[in-house]
């Protein structure tokens, strides 16, 4: 009987593009060990070569050539049997660089199929971010630190083989563990990786997610206009300038908030976000001046509030801020909304500063980091934690 199976890998541009490709290649080659045919490809419209932008890679596997061709006759699979999310901050949804609006990470998953997330968090925490949907599905977590590397390098931390071992458990009709092991032995030539894949296979389990369970957020979306409705001359109307806005407590107008594009939000591009201590801010303007995306609102107090519609999480503000711990970049998975930090601060300063203190404990060391991304030597620092995960699960 003809069989067509598809796997979708959601990853962070640049940092995980090689990892995603290696996984989809591994899927096709492991399935080929069982006589199946397949292709592995990346979504072209996304930006595998833009820092942190959500991207997708796919593997399609079929029992025979004609079934494979039927699967290839569309640009990319609209329905998949497994979705793998390689960085848990992506659970908030994805937007390609061309901005279709926000897409939940589980949107392509067939009913009852499995969403696999690499994370140190548990399922209830992840489901605060993963959007609810009408059909049930399974959620499985591969415990691990998101594997990030650079444009030209691949961090060989076994994430690829662990995911392959996990898929063998989650979707046995795609391939069995033996085929994954054969692929690793023949192509990757590493018995240690075979152990990693096997351990991941043995440890993996998934929970059922019921219809309606998950993040209730209304999705940001818009309709693409027809050619007659579009402006001519490949031109886009500029944004109005913006202006002062109200203090949430006194209701007095002040400060300056630039008007921002209604169709262009950066919610899903961030791996980290800046958290601001408005009590220690000296109003030096450096974050506001240096932000490449003009994402800082000037508050009526004269402090600077990173507007999370516009912030892409680059971390330049943290790098230029001269006050200790006034702006810190914290992993996006710690947050479940995009509310204004300044408004929270104004409503209850004590509570805000207390929670800030706890939040910045989770910030990564700033000294060696450039522009919010990973830094040289970080992998070595992660090895003890990674070993613990490997040993204990």
């Amino acid at each position, binding site marked *: 009987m003809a069989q067509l199976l598809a796997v979708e890998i959601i990853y962070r541009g640049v940092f995980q593009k090689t990892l995603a490709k290696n996984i989809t290649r591994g899927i096709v080659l492991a399935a080929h060990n069982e006589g199946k045919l397949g292709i592995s490809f990346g979504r072209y*419209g996304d930006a595998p070569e833009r820092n942190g932008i959500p991207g997708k890679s796919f593997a399609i596997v079929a029992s025979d050539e004609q079934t494979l061709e039927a699967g290839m006759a569309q640009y990319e699979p609209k329905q998949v049997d497994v979705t793998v999310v390689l960085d848990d901050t992506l659970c908030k949804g994805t937007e*390609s660089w*061309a901005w279709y609006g926000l897409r939940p990470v589980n949107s392509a998953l067939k009913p009852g199929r499995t969403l696999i997330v690499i994370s140190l968090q548990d399922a209830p925490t992840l489901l605060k971010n993963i959007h609810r949907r009408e059909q049930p599905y399974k959620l499985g977590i591969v415990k691990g630190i998101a594997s990030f590397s650079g444009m030209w390098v691949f961090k060989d931390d076994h994430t690829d083989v662990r995911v392959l071992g996990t898929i063998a458990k989650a979707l046995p009709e795609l391939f069995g563990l033996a085929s994954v092991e054969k692929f690793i032995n023949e192509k990757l030539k590493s018995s240690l990786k075979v152990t990693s894949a096997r351990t991941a296979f043995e440890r993996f389990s998934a929970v059922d997610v019921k219809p309606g369970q998950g993040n209730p957020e209304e999705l940001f979306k818009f309709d693409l206009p027809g*050619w007659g409705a579009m402006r001519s*001359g*490949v*031109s*886009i*109307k500029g944004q109005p300038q913006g202006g002062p806005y109200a203090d949430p407590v006194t209701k007095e107008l002040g400060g300056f908030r630039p008007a921002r594009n209604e169709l262009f939000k950066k919610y899903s591009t961030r791996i980290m976000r800046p958290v601001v201590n408005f009590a220690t801010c000296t109003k030096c303007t450096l974050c506001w001046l240096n932000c490449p995306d003009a994402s800082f609102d000037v508050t009526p107090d004269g402090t600077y509030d990173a507007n999370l519609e516009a912030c892409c999480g680059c971390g330049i503000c943290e790098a230029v801020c001269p006050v200790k711990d006034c702006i810190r970049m914290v992993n996006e998975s710690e947050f479940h909304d995009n509310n204004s930090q300044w408004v929270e601060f104004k409503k209850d300063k004590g509570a805000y500063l207390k929670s800030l203190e706890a939040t910045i404990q989770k910030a990564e060391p700033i000294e060696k980091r450039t522009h919010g991304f990973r830094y040289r030597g970080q992998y070595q620092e992660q090895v003890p934690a990674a070993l613990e995960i490997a040993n204990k699960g």
Partner: protein
Amino acid sequence: MATLTQSVDEKKKIYEQEALITGAEAIAIACKLANVDVVTAYPIRPYDTVMQYISQLVADGEMDCEFIVAEGEHSQFEIVKHASACGARVFCGSSGVGWMYAMEALTVSPALRIPMVCMVGNRALDDPGAFGVEHNDALAVRDLGWLLTWVDSAQEALDTALIAYRVAEDRRILVPLAISCDGAFLTHSQALVKIPAAEQVKKFLPRYDRGDLLLHPDNVISVAPQANEDWVMEVRRQNYAVTEITCDVIREVYADFERTFGRKYGNPFFEEYMTEDAEVVLLGMGTLSTPVKVAIRKLREEGKKVGFVRLRWFRPFAGPELAKCLERFKAVGVIDRDFSFGSPNLSGVVATEVRSAMYTGSSTRPPVLCFIGGLGGREVTVPDVEKMTDIVFQAAQGKAQPLTQWIGLRG
């Protein structure tokens, strides 16, 4: 620029001067009359004569414009592109490989709706480095949304330049336009040209208005963003919509030109010469019209009923209209001053297009032969034309002829 005579037709209120000028000079004068705001230049023969004349007009205080000598053709066309986006009426041009060096700027301009008017002094593409005329330079942009016209006299060059601004800057059109002038034969030879009065030109040519496409601090827009497959097809469809109406706009503008200046061009898209009773016709673009017309008059004396169709507008290509014209004849001989290597029947560009137009637009489908000749500036001689006519007559009589033949080639 010696002014010879001044003629005034009080009844028609037409005032004009007459001067002995080259085709390039005629276009320079048209730029002055059109009150062009920004001119960019970079020397390459034979286009460079036009920049020479414009710079002289500026130096003499006759013309007020920004005259920018760029560091290369790419910048030359980029500068006018941006100036045009900001609302300036612009002029530039090039020749041969200079035009090709500007190619990236040429490709982006139609989608951005930039009505730049250019002169292409047609020149053979390198290699070998040669100065003479060949039409492959201008034809390289034929599929990209440019409007392309070929003229065959200095008078037509001047008139067409004025018409070009009206057509290109029309709010319904707004795409770039190139006027092709055969190198040497037109760019460098002087003829008597009637120059209309500035007031008359002002009446004919309204102010350039980009409307809400104007790049200006008071109209904040962002132009030329990166887009993915969700947007590109719609952008292309917008340019296609321009091509659907361009022929109508060109007809309107020629009618208005005749009303304003009293000079009549008839069908804007192609000129017919002695076709009324013709059995066969030759067809071509540019200055080869001169030897062809002379040869036709000679052949007519010998009783051979041959006519000539000179294509003025290559883009838009008036396909249905041309097919209706050509289906009256028993055979058609297209003289291509270009080549299209590897094309169907290994013909030239024009013959291939004519055949395509005939396939859908004519009921009779007479044989369409292609003659490749006059390349690199080689003369198309009267005996050449006689020889081509003879071959076309043979085809008309049902004697099979090769679909493509090289004329004036050493064997």
